[in-house]
């Protein structure tokens, strides 16, 4: 997931946002030793992230705001002299708006990027306005992502009927895509997904048609990969059309051609 990312509102000409990545040996009170020392040096921690690299060692990434004339090399050197500290890296965010210690970022096993929702929605809008079969194209685009997410979850932890829904809900929340409520029967493969604050519908603006085909595809891919059966997910209600939430219907895809599907009749 995204780590060591710090965002600050405002810009102070007299100070700089400085980060330190401190490798330390674990022991009772180790972290306190570091934070106490920094406080003595007037380096108040604004954000901290602790990574337990091994049983014996850890990594502590902190962001702090320091006066411009602070000698950073000297301060880093002093931290390094602490008995529990083995290595110190540091850097400066010149503009103090957004800064990440880690590059590149990582989202469920592969490289991730941060984006404003509007940036993605602009792509979706352009497709909807200019490309034939945009809804199908967006569904297929989402489908692959959903399949990959389910594959990743399977590879790192046991996934079963009791947690498959909460896993994707957690992912959606973490990456800022929306808040999910999933009700899906593993026996009938039928159910419903409600997305509150879908990032697409939220910033798309008013539309007469549902606009979250990408998410339909993502859910379909995730559930298809998990169940091992082709799953249809269709958005039946969208916040962009004036509804409170986005709602999706889950059903088993027909195993043979169904004219109602082909000719766009109502899906039973």
């Amino acid at each position: 997931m995204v780590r060591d990312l710090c965002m600050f509102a405002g810009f102070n000409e007299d100070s700089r946002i400085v980060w330190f990545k401190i490798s330390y040996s674990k022991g009772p009170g180790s972290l306190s030793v570091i934070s106490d020392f920094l406080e003595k040096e007037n380096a108040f921690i604004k954000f901290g992230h602790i990574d337990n690299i091994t049983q014996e060692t850890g990594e502590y990434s902190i962001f702090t705001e320091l006066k411009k004339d602070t000698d950073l090399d000297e301060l880093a050197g002093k931290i390094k002299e602490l008995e529990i500290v083995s290595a110190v890296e540091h850097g400066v965010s010149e503009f103090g708006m957004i800064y990440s210690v880690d590059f590149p970022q990582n989202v469920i096993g592969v490289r991730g990027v941060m984006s404003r929702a509007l940036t993605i929605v602009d792509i979706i809008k352009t497709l909807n306005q200019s490309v034939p079969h945009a809804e199908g194209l967006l569904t297929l685009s989402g489908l692959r992502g959903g399949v990959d997410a389910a594959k990743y979850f399977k590879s790192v932890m046991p996934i079963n009927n009791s947690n498959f829904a909460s896993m994707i809900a957690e992912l959606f929340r973490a990456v800022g895509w929306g808040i999910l409520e999933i009700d899906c029967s593993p026996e009938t493969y039928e159910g419903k997904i409600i997305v509150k604050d879908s990032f697409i519908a939220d910033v798309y603006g008013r539309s007469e048609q549902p606009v979250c085909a990408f998410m339909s595809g993502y859910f379909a891919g995730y559930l298809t990969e998990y169940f091992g059966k082709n799953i249809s997910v269709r958005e039946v209600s969208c916040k962009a059309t004036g509804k409170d939430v986005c709602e999706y219907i889950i059903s088993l895809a027909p195993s043979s051609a169904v004219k109602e599907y082909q000719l766009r009749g109502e899906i039973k």
Partner: protein
Amino acid sequence: MIRQPNVILGNDKLLVTMGRKGEIFGLFYPRRDHAQHAEESFACIHTGDRLLWTNDIEWHSSQNYVEDTNIVSTKLYHDSGIKISILDLVHPEVPVLIRRFKVQSQKKISGKFFYFSNLNVGETSKKNSAFCDSDARLLAQYWQNYNIGIYARPEFTEWQIGKAMDTIWWTNSKYDMEDGKLQRNKEDIGNINNAVGWDLDLGAGETNEFVIYIGAASSRSMLYKRMHELSKLPLEHIFEKTREYWVMWLSKKHVLKMPGIEGYNNLRQELFNAYNRALLMLYLLNDHEYGSFVAAPEFDSNFEKCGGYGFCWNRDSSELVLALKRSGYPEYCDRFFKWCIRTQMPDGSWFQRYWLNGDIAPSWGNFDYSTQIDETGSTLHAMDVYYRTLEGLKKVEFLEDVWVSVLRAAEYLMKRTKSGLHESCTDLWETYYGIFTYTSAAIYAGLMGASHLAEENAESGMARRWKKRADFIKQATIDRFWLQEGYFAKGIIHEKLDKTVDASILGAYIPFRMLSPKEPVERDMILFLIENIQKKLSVPINTGYGIKRYENDAYIDGNPWIVTTLWLSAAMFSFVLDLPNGKEGPYAEEVEKLTNEGIKCLSWALEGATSTGLLPEQVDKSSGKPAWAIPLGWSGSLMLDNIILFDKICRRNAGKQE
């Protein structure tokens, strides 16, 4: 999507373009320019747990033509130990592509062999319809009177027709293949794709064979009949018939000898091969009904990065038919000039470019100021060059056929050159508006040709008038554009003399002969031109240098072009042949130098070809690989011209030694 082919094949009605892994990029029927029915079409293996798409980067490939034919052999190797040999041929008489796949594996496989196609029949993804006749085992997709069918031996055992780009994604054939089992949907409409499949059960080292027929027809019943009849014939029989067809067609060619070039390693054989390949390639670019040629098979139909190439330009085609005539195929001139008579504009000019049936094509040259006057000059020039080769009744009949067209075209050129230099128009590279050396030379040659034809037609008054104007144009071009640095300026652009060195100024000598090596001053001018173009436009890549179009060329990275490089060598060889006494005369040193430099250019062009020997438009200046339009007809015709010129030099030298 822009994809450059590595190989092409076809017959009179069908043109197929393919990538280096045997994946189909284009299926043109019934014309070379329209309609292009295939977006994707290639094989895929399901190993039991995953799909191996044969166009994937995981496969290594080698590809070549079966010697002296338009039959293609492609070999694919996968790191997992699977090998696929593909033999592709188009039956000489019916528009059916036959694809034989031999699949071999080092390890046991229990999976599927799939053949996937995303067809846009009628060159549209809209309103298509497809069905699988499970009794006849024929899968067909159609739009209006275009019918494309897929049939196979052995018969496919499963199939799918599904939506290619839709929310009901599970019907999509591409996704349907992932579980190793097709859903057998028998019909669908809209933007659709399809797949057919067979069981693939291979023991270690065993081979399975699948023969796929992809045919085209103007009606459903004809499609059925074609597939049915063809599938009854043994593949070996069709292969032999097809091979024989190409070999027989090539046997009509002007025979090369090239005595005395043993010292150049394998050059003689390479040139023989290149000669045959250029001829076979030009066959495939020509519309046998109308006589026109596509400049190259279309690969950018959305005009994403250029204006497209799947149209007929008079400039290119005039050169093509003359090269084919010199190579022993005069019938292409006859058909093309008939097409020219039919397509001439009301004002006597020819349009920028046409569809092969003669309709005007999408253009950025719709006005007098944006048209390309050189194309009218080129066409007239070519008519006269061809006329001079004819004899007897044929000569009389040709003149009778073209005379009105010649008259109208010459008067158009007269109208646009009242001051000696032509009125502003677009240059041959279709980039600049202005007045150009190349265009002036083309007009000069056009009027000189027209003058000769008028003389032959007993119209001496017109002949004198047109020749007088031609001489005036020549003098004006030399007076205004010849620079003391020893070359022609590109022309006048934005009302200023543009001194950029442009390879097209070679046109003043070859092919338009505005400068004559028989005149001492002009002989020196030609030598200066050659020298300056070499000096200013050479781009070192591969084992030699290629010539770019002009200084600061920005089109597709400003690569060196096969056309300009072979244009330069053609000028060198022509100059050698134009000099009296060749190697023995006062220009002996120049003769040897120019011959050797010309050979270097030829070798460089051969190095820039695809693995199958097709000549591209350009060679990538960084990688040395074929670039942009592949194959380009104009590159092929210049290769023919160069080889014939070089053959003449060899024969002349050998004759003297004897």
